[in-house]
């Protein structure tokens, strides 16, 4: 299995919040059965792409299922005052706490953006006067890192056993870039190998997809949603455009 951590997956809490928002659900009265089903169908897809991330999602799935089961019990648990305990309570608290940090992350991002607009003198140190050797400031973590570097340089044959797909992300990147040179292309089309009738495999699709995420992250490609629920379009980010609009856009006008 080709393993890669899809950094953009935000995780199970994010996914739940997405369902809640999309269906305009009351956070304090989440229809657990419905959400659990949707959640599970998502996880089954995820397992094919990213086993690492899937583990986190599966754990949440088990929480959802257990809440669902508790909701069905005729006699719910009671707290010390004799009130029924809503089995969803803990999950809701987690969702709300998570929302807070998500918002905080956005604030940090604004600060980061502002700071990035202010340039400092990049190599002030070098300008000053000659400093013979490059020196570093350190923390405890540096020690650890240095040690790891040093130890890894001490010879010890490393063995990697990776089942390779017949396609590499590298190749698929090239495939994708070639596919979009003439303009907007449907992902389904690209993932079919370009021409109708070409045999394709899950591996081909997944690796193409990974390559796509990679290119989106590098802002070489942009993805457009909204054409059809079963597809999305891919286009090249032209030079100079990079970073101006969001790389991922949901553009209902098009």
């Amino acid at each position, binding site marked *: 299995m080709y393993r890669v951590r*899809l*950094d*953009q*997956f*935000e*995780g*199970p809490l*994010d*996914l739940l*919040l*997405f369902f*809640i*928002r999309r269906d*305009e659900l009351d956070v304090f009265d989440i229809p657990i059965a419905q959400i659990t089903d949707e959640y599970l169908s998502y996880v089954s*897809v995820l397992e*094919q792409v990213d086993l*690492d991330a899937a583990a986190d999602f599966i754990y949440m799935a088990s929480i959802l299922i257990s809440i669902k089961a508790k909701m069905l019990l005729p006699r719910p648990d009671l707290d010390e005052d004799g009130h029924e305990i809503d089995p969803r309570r803990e999950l809701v608290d*987690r969702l*709300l*706490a998570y*929302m*807070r*940090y998500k*918002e*905080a*992350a*956005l*604030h*940090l*991002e*604004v*600060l*980061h953006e*502002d*700071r990035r607009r*202010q*340039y*400092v*003198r990049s*190599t*002030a140190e070098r300008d*000053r006067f000659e400093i013979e050797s490059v020196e570093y400031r350190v*923390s405890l973590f540096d020690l650890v890192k240095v040690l790891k570097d040093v130890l890894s340089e001490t010879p010890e044959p490393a063995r990697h056993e990776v089942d390779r797909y017949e396609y590499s992300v590298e190749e698929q990147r090239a495939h994708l870039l070639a596919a979009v040179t003439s303009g907007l292309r449907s*992902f*389904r089309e690209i993932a079919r190998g370009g021409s109708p009738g070409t045999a394709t495999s899950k591996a081909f*699709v997944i690796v193409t*997809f990974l390559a796509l*995420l990679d290119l989106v*992250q*590098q*802002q070489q490609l942009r993805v457009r*949603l909204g054409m059809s*629920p*079963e597809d999305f379009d891919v286009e090249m980010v032209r030079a100079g455009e*990079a*970073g101006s*609009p*969001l790389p*991922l856009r*949901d553009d209902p006008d098009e």
Partner: protein
Amino acid sequence: MEDAFRSPLRRTIEAIVFASDEPVTASALAKLHAHVFGDPASKEDVESEVATLNREYQDAGRAFRIRSWAEGYRMATVQELAPVLHAHFQRTDSKRLSRSLMETLAIIAYRQPVTKPEVDHVRGVNSDYALRKLLDADFVTILGRSDAVGRPLVYGTTDAFLERFGIRALDDLPKPREIEELLNDPAFNTERAALLSADGLADTSEQAPRPGGMPPFAVADGIVSESDDA
């Protein structure tokens, strides 16, 4: 024009802050001045000279100001000149932090000292990768060990984090809103939309554009349909 030569402290501050590649504290500047000129100076003297310098820069239309970051002073260009600088240095935005890194960083910044299990629990995902990246970037560091069972390592943010985010001190971090406040906000739904969806983000001008990222649902859509054919 005032005779700036009359203030060696001001020139000292300007020279050191200009030539430094990291924030310089007011007390370091005061001490240096006392050391070189044999003339004692207080932190307040330094602060007031920095204010004077910034006023002079402003009046003269200088391209830079002295900023207060990570408990020290740093000279940096003014924001409105960013387009010229971006153009010259060909900075692209591909180096933005991904959402998951930003999220992890926010949790660490607000909850420090914090252990990895705590971060994982808040995010609902394993934060190994994000944590490693943040350690590598020197935004986060190991503070020590918790006294909890297993004595897990505890993490916190670094001065470099403050510097790179333009924050004067940890106390200056914008406070996250309380949950009640979040929920009672009439804009809650818009807010939520902004937080959660790609389309919501596109038009919220006060929010920074999101780092290049795909929301999980888009991923699911693409693959679901594809794997059906496959």
